[in-house]
């Protein structure tokens, strides 16, 4: 196993965070991050679809002709979304009432199609599943963080942050902070690598 590729894929959800770095899936991120419970549920549902669609897209990549790959991916993604929706309707009716509308919209969530197209269709099943897990966890982390902060601000009386415009403000600030911390980490890593190379030379 290529250790570097494994590490890069496993940490993809952090360094290429779908919400804070790639800025994908903004509609559910803003709409359902008003409280942490809905955010976690939608994040988990999205992660499930991401993992399984990546698995099947990767497994079938050699059989799906290039010209029909997108409709094929959409069918695969829609199947898993419908399964999740049926499961939630059957077992979690209260959750279904609050996030039901957004479950069916997972089909058109850019994160899922983007990962299927840019990663799963070009890599082996193991890496595709790892990428799905990593990106899924990254999405859950971001949406829960946003949901938690907006819920706390709402409870503190700042109701504006529970609204959609307020959601964008919180998201923008979170995005700035996340990318700032990420740039510090990357600069630190680059410095460390340069020192090692200098030592070797």
């Amino acid at each position: 196993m290529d250790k570097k590729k494994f590490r890069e894929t496993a940490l993809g959800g952090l360094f290429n965070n779908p919400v804070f770095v790639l800025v994908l899936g903004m509609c559910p991120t803003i709409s359902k991050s008003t409280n942490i419970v809905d955010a976690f549920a939608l994040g988990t549902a999205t992660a499930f679809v991401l993992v399984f669609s990546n698995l099947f897209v990767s497994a079938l990549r050699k059989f799906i002709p290039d010209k029909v790959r997108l409709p094929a991916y959409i069918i695969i993604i829609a199947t898993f979304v419908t399964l999740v929706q049926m499961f939630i309707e059957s077992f979690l009716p209260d959750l279904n009432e609050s996030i039901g509308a957004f479950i069916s919209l997972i089909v058109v969530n850019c994160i899922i199609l983007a990962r299927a197209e840019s990663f799963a269709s070009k890599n082996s099943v193991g890496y595709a599943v790892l990428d799905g897990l990593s990106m899924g966890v990254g999405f859950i982390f971001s949406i829960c963080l946003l949901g938690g902060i907006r819920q706390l601000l709402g409870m503190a009386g700042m109701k504006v942050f529970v609204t959609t415009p307020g959601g964008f403000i919180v998201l923008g600030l979170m995005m700035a902070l996340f990318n700032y911390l990420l740039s510090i980490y990357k600069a630190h890593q680059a410095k460390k690598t340069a020192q090692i190379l200098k030592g070797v030379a």
Partner: protein
Amino acid sequence: MSRTVKNALISAAVLVVIAVVSVTCLMLANAFLPKYTPTLDIKKIGQLRQVAPVEADDSTALSDGYYSIVGSDAFDLEKFNTDNRTVGEVLAVYKVEKGENAGMYITETKTVGYGSQNTVLLTAYNADATVAGLIKLRDDGDYLLTDSAQYEALRNAVIGKKAMTTDEIKIATGATANGSISGIEKNLRLSGDLIVLLLGEGE
């Protein structure tokens, strides 16, 4: 056979195989997952009281049996749903057993608007099959019913009527949310047909 035709046929065949496998998986899941079963809990009683009020509070209405679920002895719900599957699904029918609205039927219906969004309504009916009250339990459509003014306008317009066309809903609410409007129209049509069946053709 030219290479282009061959490629097109292979592409179509692959898509068909993927679609067939997907549909089979969904059919199996649909067969094994438990179906919605109506229950009369405190939350449901609260919703029923909004469309067909009784003088008792929620907990008294629940414990004293102010509402009941209309069972299969009154009508064949499964057959009705099969016959009307293109319109939507009746999830449950409730009846007011006590109080000034005793005898009133309440339907819980689910339909799909334009673009496959679910709309679930709870609609109460008078003895002459006209609407007595209405609340939305779910609207995944264009969010017409999240606007309280439009929702109130819809309620005011539908009370006393047996059904409403999509144009009438648009005029009454001033909304252009096609997904929601279509879902509401289908809900009213479906529940109206069922009420006529329950009350008898002559009434």
